[in-house]
């Protein structure tokens, strides 16, 4: 039955759709035929020609109505109607190209910035590791110490215990960033890679493109398994895609490693921000990490690791299990693990890569782009109000000829969908263009491939589609709402609008402009606050000199130096450097302040200081050479510097900072007292001023220094205080290094100011992005203001002309228009300031030494807003001042 029905009806449906015009014409022919026959009959009855026609029409009931009824009887043709609506909509858009282009641009901007920021959040915070399986179940794993905020690395023996005892995890794996010099042919360069556990590639579900991953056991032993997996990029760029690469030998840090595999394209490892180029098993740790062989040392915490949960396990459950294991370890190994816990973080909170540093920036950006979207929408709303007024006549005609409200609504929604759809498509293109923008904003470092991509996946698509849908509703409903109020007769009679509706519309438009000004004012204030904060950070004293001090290091580890050889080399080099012209002093240190790297940390004990039970005080320290404090310009408050005499044969000594002195010795002078470092007692010989160690924004914290020669590190950083330029000193140093050993290479040399700038780059990114968006918001608001004012001027031409006729000068009119604009702005600024005082507090994490309600920032925002208003109102005002009263009043 059903099938047979289709047999008849399907061809009809297709015909309706494909040859709608012909079907319509046939319908007309059919009805006309009937009409003519009826007229004929009427004429034969003796009616006049005119009467015959009218009577026939009356009997039929009106051609148009019957045609419509017949069309309805043929069934509502959803697809056909939609296609018709689409065609009509596209024609409408072409009819008013200015409106269409402006609307689509506004939406593109609004949707684009949202899609871009969301794609960054997706690519950096939520799914940061391309090609890695099941990232939604991946957690970062690190250690915490009681009484110390923040998380850090764990030790290899602890990791093995966690791995053995973990029941809720699919896998636990290590991925610790490291670097290596890579010499291929005569070209040497530094590149980044990861030290990983043997289960790494299995755990993340990445299968090498060529060769194999690591086998169980390859992460056991000391220098036992010199094998390496290289990245696709490295394989292509440095090995020219050699298909026979597997099995070849490559020197990494001067140790020959066998290349056993190549990872697939678009896999960049598991470190947010930087692309990894090689992976070595943990057994090769000593070759890449300073500080010796650490796989059997439970006190050496250097591992960054991840846990992948079994399906259905929550983070809280996994955390409970980790805490339970950590408590057992604490009991079993009190000397190293007292007060230590294991902590799990969501990927976007990972403490040991760039996710954490980008998080506050992206949080702020998420809020800012919503503002921009709202401002763009207000602009679109304004455009729609004007346009719906212009289309009032069209709507009235359509309603008069029998279009139902539902049909009109569908038409308007279709038009809205076209606009929003084009806007969303444009937005995704914008997001696609911007996907690498974050990486570009961060300062480049030599040897590191920045990789902070936006990820345009279905989440981003969904968000854009959602915004698009909302925009469609707004775009369709605003004019539909306006059309509902159409007074048919009135609207058809003349194009004159009643005074009251015009006023209501003006109110709505002014309201939208006030809203825009309000939002852009908040963004401006926020941008200025961030700018102030950045300036404060960049000019804040880190506690050491930044201007005339440069920092570099020599690739001793890479060149395969052992400790005795390194000691001789380092002694030799520093003497030569001190003799260079323009060098005031020079000193080694394991780490330069604010560098990416982890300070050594040790449990300490102090005579006369009794820590609370259950707590093992641990303090970070740095290994520094003679003249370190003089070179970096860190003041010594009392006591003396380390000298060449404080070597491995002399008694152990240490210098503590001011905060450490206050915490552990109180009012007593610590000089000459004992401090236990790594289980050995050292004598305190000096107190140094506090300075910044890991971040400009950190609070003062306990810290101490030990002589480099008493806790030796190969290839430390070399700090030089000099009056020479960076280029000169770099060249001179390279010459000295090469004259000792021609095989050695210098790492990048930078000033400590550059070091500070790099460490504050997230703030720079935030400032740049917020400023750009605040600028866009301001532009959009200015466009809105301009539109409203020019429209108001056009509408009140008569009033203006009358004023002029009564003696107002052109400057008076200009002033009148601008003061109207300023009144709108004042309203917006007032609201913006009120809301801004509450909202700028959200900037807290990014602000440094700047109050979120800083009056100067709000003042600056006000000034910019005022100037913009005057600029936006000037042209409408100028036009008003050129009114020709005679002509306007006559018309």
């Amino acid at each position, binding site marked *: *039955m059903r099938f*047979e*029905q*289709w*047999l*008849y*009806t399907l061809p*009809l449906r297709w015909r309706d759709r494909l040859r709608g015009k012909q079907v319509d014409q*046939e*319908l007309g*022919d*059919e*009805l006309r*035929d*009937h009409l003519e*026959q*009826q007229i004929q009959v009427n004429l034969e009855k003796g009616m006049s020609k005119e009467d015959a026609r009218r009577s026939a029409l009356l*009997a*039929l*009931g*009106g051609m148009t*109505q*019957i045609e419509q*009824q*017949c*069309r*309805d*009887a*043929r*069934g509502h043709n959803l697809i056909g109607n939609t296609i018709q609506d689409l065609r009509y909509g596209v024609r409408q858009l072409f009819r008013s190209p200015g409106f269409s282009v402006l609307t689509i641009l506004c939406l593109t901007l609004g949707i684009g910035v949202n899609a871009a920021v969301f794609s960054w959040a997706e690519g950096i915070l939520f799914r940061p590791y391309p090609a890695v399986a099941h990232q939604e179940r991946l957690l970062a794993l690190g250690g915490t110490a009681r009484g110390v905020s923040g998380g850090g690395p764990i030790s290899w023996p602890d990791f093995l215990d966690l791995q053995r005892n973990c029941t809720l995890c699919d896998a636990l794996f290590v991925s610790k960033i490291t670097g290596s010099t890579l010499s291929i042919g005569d070209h040497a360069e530094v590149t980044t890679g990861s030290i990983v556990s043997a289960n790494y590639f299995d755990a993340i579900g990445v299968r090498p493109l060529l060769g194999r991953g690591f086998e169980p056991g390859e992460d056991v032993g000391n220098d036992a398994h010199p094998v390496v997996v290289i990245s696709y990029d490295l394989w292509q760029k440095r090995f020219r895609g050699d298909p026979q690469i597997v099995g070849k030998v490559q020197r990494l840090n001067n140790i020959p490693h066998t290349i056993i595999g190549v990872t697939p394209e678009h896999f960049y490892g598991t470190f947010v921000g930087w692309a990894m180029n090689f992976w070595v098993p943990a057994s090769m740790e000593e070759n890449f990490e300073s500080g010796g062989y650490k796989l059997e040392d439970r006190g050496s915490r250097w591992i960054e690791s991840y846990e992948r949960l079994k399906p259905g396990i929550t983070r809280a459950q996994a955390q409970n299990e980790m805490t339970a294991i950590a408590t057992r370890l604490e009991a079993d190994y009190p000397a190293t693990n007292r007060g230590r816990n294991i902590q799990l973080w969501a990927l976007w909170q990972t403490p040991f890569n760039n996710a954490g540093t980008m998080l506050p920036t992206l949080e702020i950006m998420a809020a800012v782009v919503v503002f921009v979207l709202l401002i763009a929408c207000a602009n679109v709303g304004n455009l729609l109000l004007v346009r719906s007024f212009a289309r009032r006549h069209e709507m009235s005609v359509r309603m008069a000829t029998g279009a139902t409200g539902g049909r009109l609504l569908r038409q308007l929604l279709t038009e809205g969908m076209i606009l929003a759809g084009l806007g969303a498509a444009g937005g995704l293109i914008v997001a696609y263009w911007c996907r690498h923008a974050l990486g570009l904003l961060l300062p480049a470092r030599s040897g590191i491939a920045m990789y902070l991509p936006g990820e345009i996946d279905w989440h981003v698509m969904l968000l854009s589609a959602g915004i698009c849908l909302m925009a469609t509703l707004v775009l369709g409903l605003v004019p539909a709402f306006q059309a509902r109020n159409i007074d048919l007769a009135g609207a058809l009679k003349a194009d004159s609008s009643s005074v009251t509706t015009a006023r209501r519309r003006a109110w709505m438009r002014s309201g939208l402009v006030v809203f825009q000004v309000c939002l852009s004012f908040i963004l401006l204030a926020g941008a200025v606050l961030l700018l102030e904060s950045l300036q404060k950070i960049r000019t804040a004293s880190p506690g050491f000199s930044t201007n005339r001090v440069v920092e570099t290091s020599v690739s001793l580890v890479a060149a395969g130096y052992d400790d005795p050889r390194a000691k001789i080399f380092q002694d030799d080099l520093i003497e030569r450097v001190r003799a260079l012209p323009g060098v005031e002093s020079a000193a080694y240190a394991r780490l330069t302040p604010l560098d990416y790297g982890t300070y050594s940390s040790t449990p300490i004990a102090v005579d006369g200081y009794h820590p609370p039970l259950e707590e093992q005080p641990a303090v970070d320290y740095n290994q520094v050479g003679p003249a370190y404090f003089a070179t970096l310009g860190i003041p010594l408050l009392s006591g003396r510097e380390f000298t060449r005499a404080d070597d491995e044969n002399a008694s152990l000594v240490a210098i503590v900072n001011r905060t450490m002195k206050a915490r552990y010795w109180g009012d007593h002078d610590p000089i000459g007292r004992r401090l236990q470092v790594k289980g050995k007692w050292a004598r305190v010989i000096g107190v140094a001023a506090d300075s910044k160690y890991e971040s400009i924004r950190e609070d003062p914290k306990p810290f101490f220094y030990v002589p480099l020669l008493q806790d030796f590190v190969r290839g430390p950083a070399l700090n030089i205080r000099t009056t020479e330029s960076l280029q000169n000193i770099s060249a001179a140093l390279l010459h000295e290094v090469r004259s000792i050993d021609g095989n050695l290479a210098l790492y990048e040399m930078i000033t400590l100011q550059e070091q500070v700038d790099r460490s504050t780059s997230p703030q720079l990114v935030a400032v740049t992005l917020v400023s750009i968006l605040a600028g866009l918001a301001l532009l959009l608001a200015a466009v809105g203001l301009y539109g409203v004012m020019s429209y108001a001027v056009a509408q009140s031409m008569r009033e203006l002309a009358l004023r002029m006729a009564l003696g107002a000068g052109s400057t008076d009119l200009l002033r009148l228009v601008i003061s109207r604009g300023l009144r709108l702005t004042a309203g917006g600024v007032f609201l913006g300031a009120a809301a801004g005082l509450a909202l700028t507090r959200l900037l807290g994490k990014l602000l440094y030494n700047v109050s979120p309600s800083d009056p100067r920032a709000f003042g600056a925002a006000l000034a910019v807003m005022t100037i913009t208003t005057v600029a936006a109102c000037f042209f409408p005002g100028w036009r008003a001042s050129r009114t020709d009263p005679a002509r306007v009043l006559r018309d």
Partner: protein
Amino acid sequence: MSKPSDLVQGTLDMLILKIVALEAQNGWAISQRLKQISSDVLGVSDGSLYPALHKLERRGWITAQWKSSGNNRRAKFYSLTRLGRRQLETETANWNRISSAISGIVKLKEA
């Protein structure tokens, strides 16, 4: 626009089917035929005829063809389909059942 009541609407469909069942007819002829047999009683206007025709066509009960209609003009001729014939049979049967039931009730009241 006079809209026929539900009863008449259903009846109208049946009448149209019945009319075109005999031979293919164009709209004008159907309207004349309808008037002949029923206009005084049912009051079917020409206005409701054409939407009904298009509805029946869309349901597959009648099918249309453009043919010459005498005095040199082409007209749309409707004829019954197999589906339509079956429909006409059911509707006629229904009608007979209902009308006999109703007349039964009416007679009951008279008695």
